[in-house]
């Protein structure tokens, strides 16, 4: 009986296959217009490089990784993925407003864990994703989704291993979610 009520309360999301077709068309259009796919982690990389470059320009210029993304004529924020990622945020805002999901600040978690545990896990998860996306040459958007769609072997590899690892370690972290 309870289950019925809960199902009615479930947030109204669009049909996942319909969502997938829309996402696929957005990705196809992106390839058609720009010749490249979508991305997300690249914007944070630009933000990191910009911050370090502002705070300690000499240090940033000497760092063999960051110096790849610094140019004399424009800021690292002047980058396709930065504008696109800002768009992702606005798109989320529009959809959230349309479907009534923008609410006061909140933490989403399993009832079995505390807010502190959830935020700690989210922070560590973010750090790992940040490091992994640099080694992986992109995250779920840039490597797994766009890479696989453009038939890149590395993209397929990242997709399979990322989700595969998720399944392998899911058991140990089940309390975070179920």
């Amino acid at each position, binding site marked *: 009986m309870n289950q019925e009520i809960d199902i009615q309360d479930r*947030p109204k999301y669009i049909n996942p296959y319909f969502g997938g077709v829309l996402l696929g068309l957005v990705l196809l259009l992106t390839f058609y217009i720009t010749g490249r796919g979508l991305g997300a982690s690249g914007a944070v990389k630009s933000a990191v490089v910009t911050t370090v470059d502002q705070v300690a320009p000499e240090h940033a210029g000497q760092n063999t990784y960051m110096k790849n993304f610094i140019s004399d004529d424009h800021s690292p924020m002047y980058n396709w993925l930065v504008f696109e990622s800002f768009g992702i945020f606005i798109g*989320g805002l529009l959809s959230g407003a349309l479907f009534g999901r923008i609410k006061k600040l909140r933490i989403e978690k399993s009832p079995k864990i505390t807010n502190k545990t959830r935020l700690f896990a989210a922070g560590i998860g973010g750090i790992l*994703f940040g490091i992994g996306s640099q080694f992986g040459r992109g995250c779920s958007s840039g490597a797994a989704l766009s890479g696989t769609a*453009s038939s890149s072997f590395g993209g397929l590899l990242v997709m399979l291993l*990322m989700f595969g690892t*998720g399944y392998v370690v899911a058991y140990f972290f089940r309390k975070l979610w179920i």
Partner: protein
Amino acid sequence: MGPLIPQGIIPMGWDFVIALLIGIAFGFVLEASGFSSSRNITGVFYGYNFVVLRVFFTAVVVAMIGLQYFDYFGWIDLNQIYVLPTYLSPMIVGAIIMGVGFILGGFCPGTSYTAIAIGKIDAMVFTGGLFLGIFLFSEFFPFFEQFYYSGNMGNITIGEFFGISNTLFTLIFVVIAVVAFYVTWRIELRVRKNMTQYKF
């Protein structure tokens, strides 16, 4: 013939306007599909919600088939499409690290931006973590610089790796996707039957 910007059909000046518009479409679809919720996303790993697999595989299938047909009709020059280069060992390591980060964080970078948009504090912390993670990677880069550039296989495609055509791989992927949709639908039905609550 596409791609439009590299071919100079749309001038470069429009690049960032288009980036913003594409991002808005991308973010809208992610949020509308339910990716602004971490418990929705991680359902794919515990069997109670396979929305990630459905959206992801459908999108790959649509874009892959689309690119093949665009090429067939002569609408796009596939040689000008960016193929992500493969660096074998660093990408294996990176994907494994991301897999663990996925389970702990419940988001990937793109989805966390949409979750911030609707007010999720956990997504803000996740994105803060991303910033810190990339910062740490950059700072310690000299220690693993050699490894980072190792295993370079260039812009190798899936077809080239397996010695088949990319068109054939597209077909194989479609079959795998359809089977996965069916199997995960059955799994989801069984898992949900035993769940007392489903409200995210």
